[in-house]
């Protein structure tokens, strides 16, 4: 079942940058990645999906309904987001931040304590519930932001290069957590990655963007090739196979 479809979409930033998406879709339970060079329009897709930007023309269909017809609260019961990084000027606690994920569901006196605690246990963030968010390490912060998105209990999870500033150990841990959500709880994930190998390892399908267009799409083993990498990133590389996961991995030449 297709939860999300983008058809013939056009968007531009003050005529400087154009984004054109003929067709992009996301099925239930799928882990799909978007990769591509800087300025290729990856993050813009995410902005259009969260209505931070308004498309010029075309359709974005979410559960058989045009996305612009959703109220903000309804939309964020379907979609949750983990941003690249999150910074706040005040000393909010981890729990303060995670509980904002329940705002779309709030009624005047609802508390949702249970789902918050349950999710924090699952992501192992309960131990720093009372800690001030700003005092956490980068990896812990992103774990909190992922927990925040999970308490939102949405069918679709959008990740915006959410591990791009995180060390390798934490990166694997976080992406694995997301993968598990996708496999066990049938969540659909649309993730923007900088790291091609990470995208290849975890994704069911990949879209490769360049200059505001989808250049390639398909399974990792179909489109992570030396020729395509050269075309997209303008760099020579060798493709090997991951010894256990059997997915293509890129080794760059220099």
């Amino acid at each position: 079942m297709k939860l999300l479809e983008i058809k013939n979409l056009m968007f531009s930033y003050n005529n400087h940058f154009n984004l054109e998406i003929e067709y992009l879709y996301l099925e239930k339970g799928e882990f799909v990645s978007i990769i591509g060079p800087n300025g290729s329009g990856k993050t813009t897709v995410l902005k259009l999906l969260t209505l931070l930007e308004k498309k010029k023309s075309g359709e974005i269909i979410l559960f058989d309904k045009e996305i612009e017809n959703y109220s903000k609260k309804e939309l964020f019961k379907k979609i949750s987001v983990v941003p690249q990084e999150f910074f706040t000027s005040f000393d909010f606690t981890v729990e303060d931040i995670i509980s904002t994920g329940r705002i779309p569901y709030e009624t005047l006196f609802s508390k949702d304590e249970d789902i918050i605690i349950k999710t924090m246990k699952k992501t192992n963030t309960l131990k720093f519930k009372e800690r001030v968010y700003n005092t956490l390490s980068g990896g812990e912060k992103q774990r909190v932001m992922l927990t925040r998105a999970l308490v939102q209990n949405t069918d679709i999870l959008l990740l915006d290069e959410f591990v791009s500033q995180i060390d390798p150990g934490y990166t694997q841990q976080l992406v694995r957590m997301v993968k598990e959500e996708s496999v066990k709880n049938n969540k659909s994930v649309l993730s923007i990655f900088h790291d091609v190998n990470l995208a290849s390892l975890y994704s069911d399908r990949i879209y490769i963007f360049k200059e505001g267009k989808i250049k390639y799409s398909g399974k990792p083993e179909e489109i992570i090739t030396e020729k395509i990498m050269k075309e997209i990133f303008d760099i020579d590389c060798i493709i090997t196979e991951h010894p256990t996961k059997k997915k293509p991995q890129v080794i760059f030449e220099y």
Partner: protein
Amino acid sequence: MGIVFIILSIILFTSLGTVKIPFKNVILAFANNSDNPLYDRIIFNLRLPRVIGTLLIGAILAIAGNDFQMIIKNPLADPFIIGISSGASFGAVIYTALKSVYGIDLPFGIETFAFIFALIATIITFSLAKEGKKIPVVSLILSGVIVGFVFNSISTLFTVLFWQNLLHVNFWLMGSTGNIVWNDLIILTIFLVLQIAVNFIFKKHIEVVAMGDEISIFSGINPEKIKLIVLTINVFAVSVVVSKAGIIGFVGLIIPHLVRKITGPNIYYSTIGSMIYGGIFLGFADLFSRYLFRPTELPIGVTTSLVGLLFL
């Protein structure tokens, strides 16, 4: 504990002044059991409305400061610094000029005039600071200071031009709670209650807006709507304060900042903390202004600014 604190400070503030009234007599007077009619008159006609008014004003200004700091996401914001107080004060001066110099009968009260000009000052400050879709904090503070200066200068000009009819320029530009009467306490209380109500009703929303615009949107909230609600109620409350007591700076800046150091950004605790400590702080500032310099007074805005200096 806060309530005990407030009651004790009301007794203290009422007792001290040009005429010193012993604590015992203050308490007896409160208990309606006094045998000294002179003390009674001083307490109930002069001191008590001023003392309670000062507490209310300190509370309103500190809560407003806390709200501004939260929604603008900067601990430097306060109604004085972003030009709102100056706009309100200008409105009040215009009102007084029209009424007592030209004898024009105006359909609205001084509070409405103060509010209209406070709103104008706010709009000018925000539109000057706006760069595209964003409002950078540094520009906001800078344009607030500029707008504040401009309005204050025109206010000064007016008070000098019409000096024989208007209150002293110090009243509008440096503040005083000396003219507060019992009737003023009603409208001050109404706005304090409104402020607290807005903060409590929109607690989660104000907090998420303080965290950031993007996270608000990702939580299904329109941050601009929340900012507008919070800004409007506070601009109105501050205008009422300014029309009763002129511009009193720094309460809204320092108190919420210190309170949040203890309570954190939680809106329940920081609002209540700002209310209690803003009130008591301004009460002490007022006591300092009128007691140390008795029988004359130092403008209360000068006192709060001096204390503010200690923290900077």
